[in-house]
């Protein structure tokens, strides 16, 4: 568990202990209503050694890297990078989050490339 915490710190290049749980990230997150745990809870779980709960949350996949929390954090933590680190740890096990074959051809035809490339970059190994 310690190792996982260390891995997230390395991949995100963020000091997770800098967070004092003010909740400003969660308060301003535009997608928080779809998340199973709050962004500040993701950090808390990492701090207290329950990294697996953070890793297995829906939250890390709902985050679309809009950087709202990153510009607002009073402790200067770039949360978007923490979410990316957690996604990367999962994707590097070679498990896809997004199943490309389940996207209908009708949707494929109308979606802009930036949507598709962005989605596959964030959700596939």
């Amino acid at each position, binding site marked *: 568990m310690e190792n996982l915490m260390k891995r997230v710190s390395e991949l995100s290049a963020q000091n997770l202990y800098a967070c004092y749980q003010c909740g400003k990230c969660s308060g301003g997150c535009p997608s928080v209503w779809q998340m199973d745990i709050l962004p500040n809870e993701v950090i808390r779980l990492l701090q207290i050694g329950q990294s697996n709960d953070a890793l297995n949350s829906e939250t890390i996949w*709902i985050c679309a890297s*809009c950087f709202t929390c*990153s510009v607002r954090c009073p402790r200067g933590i770039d949360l978007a990078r923490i979410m*990316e680190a957690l996604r990367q740890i999962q994707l590097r096990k070679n498990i896809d989050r*997004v199943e490309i074959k389940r*996207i209908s051809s009708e949707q494929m035809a109308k979606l802009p490339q*930036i949507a598709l*490339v*962005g*989605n596959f970059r964030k959700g596939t190994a």
Partner: protein
Amino acid sequence: MRILYYPGCTLKTTAKNFEESAIAALRVLDVELVELKRWNCCGTVYSLASDDLIHKLAPVRNLIRVKEEGGSRVLTLCSMCYNTLKRANSFFREDKEAGEKMNQFMDREENYTGDVEVLHILELLRDEVGFAAISQKVQAALGQLRVAPYYGCLLLRPREIAIDDPENPTLLERLFASLGIEAVDFPYRNECCGAYQTVDQVDLVVERTYKMVNMARNNGANLIATSCPLCQFNLETRQEDVQDKYADFVQMPVVYFTQIMGAALGVREKELRFDLNRYQASELIYGR
């Protein structure tokens, strides 16, 4: 003024109305966009993992193309291209060790040093063309428009690459003012549209579009102006899905700010490609 221009994939396909209207409007302002002879994907989303250099190569290669053509700066229209190119460039400049590694990997390219300036069209309009000059070129009075300006995320965040105040941007509002067009207060103007989640989590985007369009209308807007082809898709095309979910929903046209700018500057309607917009804004703009 001539400036090298990096279009990116989407401006050549689903966002032709953005590219064509921008080129036409800039021509009126004596700015000529010179498209890079060679370019590749920008990577779309900037890689955030500290050990991930491979995904930063695509944007950097485009900056090398700029140097090859003798340029020192490059203009982008798409917000995602702006963000990836700008961030990759800063990264290259700041992390010398990583830069060296990337240069070694790209052994068939000239060594890059991070010295290309990445500009967004809105910065060019504000800082080089100037709002006063834009104001003098206005041909059509569009006082009937009440525009909700929408910035999205990637022009404003993270702070290091922001073209304006990330929390309280005014650039689009000032541009519209210079065109004699009223911009309404639109608190969602810098909130995420759901971005690429539109591929596999459509409902997330549907909910955001529903909220945003309703907010724009409640604040008196009759039109939304975007600057990003992905926001444009989510706010406009996803309105169909919103309508399937919410029977009370009323659609609103969503156009690129360059289309409105072009109309105000007297560009011919045909060149602004309103035909590619789902909900016709022509009636609102041209009164027919």
